[in-house]
């Protein structure tokens, strides 16, 4: 084993630049793709001017809610600038949060607290108007409810002091707990339910998985290069057969690839500001081991690097598409459960380890390398 690692060091000393490139490739490509998509989305977002005549807690909360709305881009301006830009069609519409907004809401008054300006070309999405009006109604209703409770206390001569903020907070908490936004649908005739386990469109980890698979496939071209027809004869006169040599190297490469992938994922969480659970790192390890073994098994069957590279690119794309890297396949997996097992990427996107792929590829590795590997002495 030591001898094999020493020989690997000789080769790595020569190939470190290319290996390093493939190690950072998934990270760099994921950042480029996600940033590019982000920039494109940004430029296609609808510009909406926001005029804050007061910066109270409720006004800020409304603006934060608006910022969560997709496909719009808020610009904070004075009324004068906002209306000037609107006239020039540089803004789609203008939302003015009027002075006295919070006071009016707190008294349950919800009329004329917001003013909206638009033009004949305005296409302000329905969701924006909905967000504003539903927020205003929500808050006004809450404060109205507080007022009603206060009235009831006075009417019944209850001496206890009513804490308006406490009632408001309790109301918000109840709303979150009831999960009104994500309802569960179930048809009486169907056995399946709509799961909350869903993958997003062009997931960061889906993009990363594609480039990680490509990099792993390209790293494993050493199997072909180090057992060419000309070199193969040398392995007859060495202490280890090529089979053992390649298996020990597989072990070494798995360690390196796992380390590189874990580091790459951690860096992506920082650069792209993505949250992950600690368990996700375990999923990444299982995924990296699986893909390394897949690459090994495939490379072992090839004699010409060119055909291996072409196969690698096609296979990576196929696994990424089947796994839902680009377009979610949740609908498909609900209808045909088996689809989720066609690619190890799907489990990665659901943040689950794919044991099935790992066990299957380990079995195939055993059969193809141990029993059916390229032999040297033929009869």
């Amino acid at each position, binding site marked *: 084993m030591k001898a094999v690692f020493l020989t690997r060091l*000789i080769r790595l*000393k*020569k190939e470190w630049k290319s290996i390093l490139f493939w190690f950072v490739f998934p990270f760099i490509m994921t950042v480029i793709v996600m940033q590019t998509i982000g920039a494109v989305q940004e430029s296609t977002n609808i510009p909406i001017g926001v005029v804050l005549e007061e910066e109270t807690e409720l006004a800020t909360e409304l603006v934060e809610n608006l910022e969560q709305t997709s496909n719009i881009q808020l610009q904070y301006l004075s009324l004068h600038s906002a209306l000037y830009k609107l006239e020039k069609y540089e803004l789609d519409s203008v939302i003015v949060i009027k002075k006295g907004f919070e006071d009016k809401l707190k008294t349950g008054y919800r009329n004329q607290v917001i003013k909206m300006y638009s033009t004949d070309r305005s296409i302000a999405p329905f969701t924006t108007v909905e967000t504003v009006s539903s927020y205003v109604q929500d808050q006004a209703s809450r404060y109205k409810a507080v007022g009603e409770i206060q009235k009831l206390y006075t009417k019944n001569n209850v001496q206890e002091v009513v804490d308006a903020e406490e009632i408001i907070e309790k109301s918000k908490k109840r709303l979150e707990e009831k999960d009104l936004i994500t309802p569960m649908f179930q048809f009486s005739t169907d056995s399946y339910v709509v799961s909350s386990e869903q993958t997003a469109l062009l997931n960061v980890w889906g993009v990363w998985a594609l480039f990680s698979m490509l990099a792993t496939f390209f790293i494993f071209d050493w199997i072909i290069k180090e057992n060419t027809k*000309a*070199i193969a004869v040398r392995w*007859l*006169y*060495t202490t280890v057969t090529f089979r053992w040599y390649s298996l020990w190297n597989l072990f070494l490469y798995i360690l390196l690839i796992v380390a590189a992938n874990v580091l790459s994922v951690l860096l992506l969480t920082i650069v792209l500001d993505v949250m992950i659970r600690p368990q996700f790192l375990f999923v990444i390890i299982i995924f990296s081991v699986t893909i390394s073994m897949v690459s090994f098994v495939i490379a072992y069957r090839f004699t010409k690097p060119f055909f291996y590279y072409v196969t690698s690119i096609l296979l990576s794309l196929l696994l990424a598409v089947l796994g839902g890297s680009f377009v979610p396949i949740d609908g498909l997996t609900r209808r045909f459960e088996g689809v989720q097992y066609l690619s190890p990427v799907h489990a990665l996107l659901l943040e689950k380890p794919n044991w099935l792929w790992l066990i299957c590829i380990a079995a195939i590795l055993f059969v193809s390398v141990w029993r059916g590997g390229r032999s040297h*002495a*033929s009869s």
Partner: protein
Amino acid sequence: MLQVDNLEKNYKQKKVLSDVSFQIEQGEVVGLVGENGAGKSTLLNILATVIKPSAGQVILDGMPYKGNQNAMRRHIGYVPQELSIWEDLTVEENMLFFEKLSWTKRTKEQCRELCLNMQLTQWEEKVSSLSGGMKRKLNMAISLLHDPKLLLLDEPTVGIDLKSKNEIGKYLVDIAKNDGKMVLYTSHDMNEIATFCDRVYVIGQDPFYLNLLKANDVDVEHLAGC
């Protein structure tokens, strides 16, 4: 001693080798010549344990090949006609790579000395920038790393200059006479064969090589061939 008895090799219906018998003593340099397709490379491949014979037996120092292939390989050095070296590595890296995986351990200095003995001096040079003659020498040096008793060379001097040919030939004679190795090698250069070989075997039906070598007073013998 290498003893070959009634060796045969068939590929499906085609007979490639038929009834080949000969022997090589310790310290001998033996040439193997014949026209293209006569079965020289097939015979070398069988002796190198790359392929198995259809019939007959091979015995090296009293140990038969059959059933002992892996053990026999420790005593065989095979220099294939195609260069079996890594072009992207240096001479040093090629030597050290295979030394790490060799049955015989050598220091870096000993590896270098092995190369110097056959006038391969560009130790730190990348193989891709070496001349054809130097590449052939490296191809041979790697095969000698585990200090084999029997050295089999498939046209080791093909396509190289006269000086390198001479250096390789002299080195083969040197390791046979001084280290007691058995050397069997094929070549199409009759001058080279006549100069460096103690004996020559001619394989195949064409009497051309046999007559040519006999005319030059070379100790030559005809193998049945195919």
